[in-house]
């Protein structure tokens, strides 16, 4: 069964990617699954300089989901290039780096440092992190902000560029079109939804930052709707994510128009879920007499 799909010039062996910030650098899951079976791994958000992230507490469980306020904790791109990349580069899967920053120069700086690493299959430009005060989501909430980052990164990065969109906007299709016009090879959506939860007994917010990013199956119907809207608005591939817990959910995103999917929060609950989803898609195609994974993309009939 041919599960491969194409994101621009990049061919993935199957449509299942692991979402940035939910899968470490892949190694954390090597005890549980054969990483080579994944379509790709999108590593933790990487910035030009090391970031300590936000203070603890950073997490609250919510109905059918969770809030996080990690705040892009990472050791910086130099550490990634020197210490992590050599350890993960030989996995037989598409290694993608999620690139984050507080300024356009930050994004460009990370890309320049990654340029020339021949095993980086793509970058995912994160203009959608809700948990850092400067940059991040602020670039992703206006068309001009998205355009400015994406066009600058386009000049600095010759390879496949995915732009990760925030759902915390009035019309996500406008932002997606701006990213496409500025040279994105694909868009991924959605990042987390801005949310908040209060410990009523202590009368305090659960998160040190008060607000955080909501993920998990509670956001899935909204994310599916946005993927459907965006896939009808742009000509580049859409990568769908938001609360995918199993193979059925992954198929749902593809039927809505996604070329590939990302599995995020579900990795926390079942560290083997990503490969189970790969298996499910193969079985589904067989069960429905479909020739390949491409036959699923936007295949919802109304």
């Amino acid at each position, binding site marked *: 069964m041919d599960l491969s799909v194409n994101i621009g010039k990049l061919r993935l062996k199957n449509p299942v990617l692991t979402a940035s910030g939910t899968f470490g650098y892949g190694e954390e*899951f090597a005890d549980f699954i054969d990483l080579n079976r994944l379509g790709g791994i999108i590593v933790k958000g990487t910035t030009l300089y090391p970031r300590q992230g936000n*203070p*603890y507490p950073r997490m609250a469980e919510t109905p059918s989901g969770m809030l996080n306020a990690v705040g892009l904790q990472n050791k910086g791109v130099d550490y990634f290039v020197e210490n992590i990349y050599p350890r993960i580069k030989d996995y037989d899967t598409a290694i993608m780096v999620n690139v984050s920053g507080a300024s356009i120069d930050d994004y460009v700086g990370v890309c320049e440092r990654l340029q020339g690493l021949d095993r980086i299959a793509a970058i995912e430009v994160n203009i959608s992190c809700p948990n850092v005060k400067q940059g991040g989501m602020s670039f992703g909430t206006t068309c001009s902000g998205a355009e400015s980052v994406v066009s600058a990164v386009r000049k600095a990065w010759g390879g496949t560029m995915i732009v990760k969109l925030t759902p915390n906007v009035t019309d996500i299709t406008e932002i997606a079109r701006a990213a496409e016009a500025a040279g994105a090879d694909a868009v991924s959506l959605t990042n987390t939804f801005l949310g908040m939860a209060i410990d009523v007994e202590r009368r305090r917010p659960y998160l040190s930052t008060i607000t955080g990013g909501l993920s998990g199956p509670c956001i899935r119907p909204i994310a599916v709707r946005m993927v459907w809207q965006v896939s009808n608005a742009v000509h580049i591939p859409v990568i769908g994510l938001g609360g995918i817990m199993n193979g059925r959910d992954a198929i749902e995103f593809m039927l809505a128009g996604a070329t590939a999917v990302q599995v995020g929060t579900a*990795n*926390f609950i079942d560290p083997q879920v990503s490969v189970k989803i790969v298996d499910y898609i193969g079985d589904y195609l067989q069960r429905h007499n479909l020739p390949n994974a491409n036959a699923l993309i936007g295949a919802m009939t109304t």
Partner: protein
Amino acid sequence: MKTVMDFVVKENVRHGNQYALLRLSPVRGTMPEVAPGQFVQIDVPNSRATFLRRPISINYADQRELWLLIRRSGVGTNALCDIPQGTTLSVVLPLGHGFSLDVKGNVLLVGGGVGIAPLLMLGKRLVMRGIDVKFLLGARTSTEVLQLDLFRQTGETRVATEDGSLGHHGLVTTHPLLEQAEIDHIACCGPLPMMKAVAAIARQRGINCEVSLENRMACGMGACLCCVEDTTDSGNVCACTEGPVFNINRLKWT
């Protein structure tokens, strides 16, 4: 090596109405090697109110059984305390970095409330290594001093209760043993204020001390970066992978 395994609840032993001891055994396969102070992540079955797994400290493990001592502290632990015998549970284990076993001299294991859980296996392992181990266990009242017989079988055990119904009257941190006895190493697990007070005594007396944190976590394997603890040497580190057991010298406790 970490793994996801199904376990069956062989017995659910209630301790009063606040605690339960779950005795689990693997549905198939053999128990992985676990170290004292490590923990497991349990998927709470048939629970609409929980989404994430629940991190639970390992109370005891051998080649056949895994024991988890659980206190009711929320919807997840409530459901686990009420779990019927025969239920199958999905468990991720073993997780985290446990207590040091290469310790020397007089070793005191200090536990408070359900925090005594990992100290039972730790004590047994240390005794097997020929180390002289004493336990100091604290609770609100005598009926909440859990597994006292098992601790007494393992080593000399002192008790402190807040209401004075058993042993020393007062908090475990006011027990004379902590101030007077010759101690070379302390391993401690309990409520955060208790661990901080024990750490302060240890620091003052120059005693090597390890504590087990229970920071709120999602994944339990270093992927989500939610359970971080600020350390003196490396800033924010995951309590789930670098801990839950930390030497107090690494912690920014004052």
